[in-house]
């Protein structure tokens, strides 16, 4: 579904954010990209989203350039590092925003996604009344509102405490196991990557390149117990080692 061949990105002023990134993500696959801070992984996600354009190589989404693909199908949702909610809108109206911008209304769908992320009782609350974890749930509900085929997540749980992060990891996994959207998940937490993804791609320090592509063999549905299995711990260590080599 997403194919990158030699994708590079140089910002005006000569700062190279990405160097020849090669990867391909199949439909329905959940891929995690791990890398040190500032390695360009968020930049790559912005390229896939069509928010920025690459300066070298070829990046295709279902055979079209990112901006073309999104204009045509509007099939993509993006979850930011922070919840990025509109503070003047209630939870429900935040979740409804993407539909509203498409001039659609689907109250049943909004009820459904609010239920899915466990916020049905907070539909009328304002973002300022919610905790960080709940705000992030709203953000995920908003991304799911349009039933996207491609979900891009840019370190969505990076600002949350460990317990909340693990809860949300599991909730996100339940959602993926139910709907099987294509997911690209950016993180610098190797445990999170190994727990969620089918494949973990390791990116080098800036300018970013994919230096390892590690398959995650654990069957679905996965649950909290997985985190304590020796195979899981071993895999996480392997990813860490690759990350260490990529970031001397």
């Amino acid at each position, binding site marked *: 579904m997403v194919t990158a061949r030699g994708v590079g990105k140089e910002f005006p002023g000569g700062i190279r954010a990405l160097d020849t990134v090669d990867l391909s993500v199949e439909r329905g696959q959940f891929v995690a990209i791990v890398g040190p801070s500032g390695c360009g992984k968020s930049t790559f996600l912005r390229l896939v989203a069509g*928010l920025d354009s690459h300066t070298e190589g070829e990046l295709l989404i279902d055979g079209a350039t990112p901006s073309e693909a999104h204009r045509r199908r509007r099939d993509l949702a993006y979850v930011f590092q922070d919840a990025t909610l509109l503070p003047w809108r209630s939870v429900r109206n935040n979740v409804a925003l993407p539909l509203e911008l498409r001039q659609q209304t689907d109250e049943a769908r909004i009820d459904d996604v609010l239920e899915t992320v466990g916020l049905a009782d907070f539909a009328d609350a304002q973002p300022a009344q919610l905790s960080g974890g709940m705000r992030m749930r709203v953000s995920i509900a908003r991304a799911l509102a349009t039933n996207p085929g491609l979900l891009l997540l840019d370190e969505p749980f990076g600002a949350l405490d460990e317990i909340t992060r693990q809860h949300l990891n599991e909730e996100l996994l339940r959602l993926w196991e139910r709907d099987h959207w294509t997911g690209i998940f950016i993180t610098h937490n190797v445990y999170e990557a190994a727990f969620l993804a089918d494949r973990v791609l390791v990116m080098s320090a800036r300018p970013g390149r994919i230096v390892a592509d590690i398959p995650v063999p654990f069957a679905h549905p996965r649950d909290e117990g997985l985190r304590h299995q020796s195979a899981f711990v071993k895999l996480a260590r392997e990813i860490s080692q690759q990350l260490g080599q990529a970031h001397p």
Partner: protein
Amino acid sequence: MKARLLHLLEQVGPPLFAFALFGLSWHALVEIFAIPPYLLPGPPRVAAAVSMHATRLLDATLLTAMGALSGFVLSFAFGFCVALLFSQSRMIERGLYPYAIFLQTVPIVAIAPLIVLWIGYGLQGVVAVSFIISLFPIIANTTAGLTQVDPRLLDLFALNNASRWQVLFKLRVPNAVPHMLTGARISSGLSVIGAIVGEFFAGYGTDDFGLGYLIIQTSGQAKTDYLFACILFCTLLGLIIFSAVGLASNLLLRRWGGAN
């Protein structure tokens, strides 16, 4: 109920106490140094002037309030439109913003006679001066609110293929609400000053005049106690308008952003 009363007392108590202290010192000063009333009348004389001219003062205050409020409402509406224009084009903003600053820096007393000359004597001249002096804070704050939008929210709208109008009315304008209210608070105080300065020059018909005209008249006739009464009413008017706008903006902000 009791807690609310206590809260109110905490709010109103200190300024009332300061006011009483100020009045007493003023009175003592006048009495001890035997200052002649045409220079500085004591509080009892001012109070007597207030009660003697109560109807005239109230009428004048109402008229000035009308001028100030009209100027304020006009500046809010016009300033909002100018800010909308600025937010849509960097070129227009760059081209015109320096002239908007002119509104802020030009001494209003210097141009008020010109405005009155062009617009005409009477209420319209007063409104015009009040409008000009209260315009800049609205333009500056609203423009800031419309343009200083979280870039990730702009990304979110772009990802959903939002049109320019959707970005403007669903993102930029709501984002500007707190800034607009800050501008409105500053402007509301200025609009009263503008109306009074306007009345210095625009005046009114013989029986129909605002506080500004009354100030010119009483100072010309050395009725210092009456002048003090006028100043007192000016202050009260400013206080009332400023508090009303502040109250309204607090209510709006609570609805805008929830708990905080």
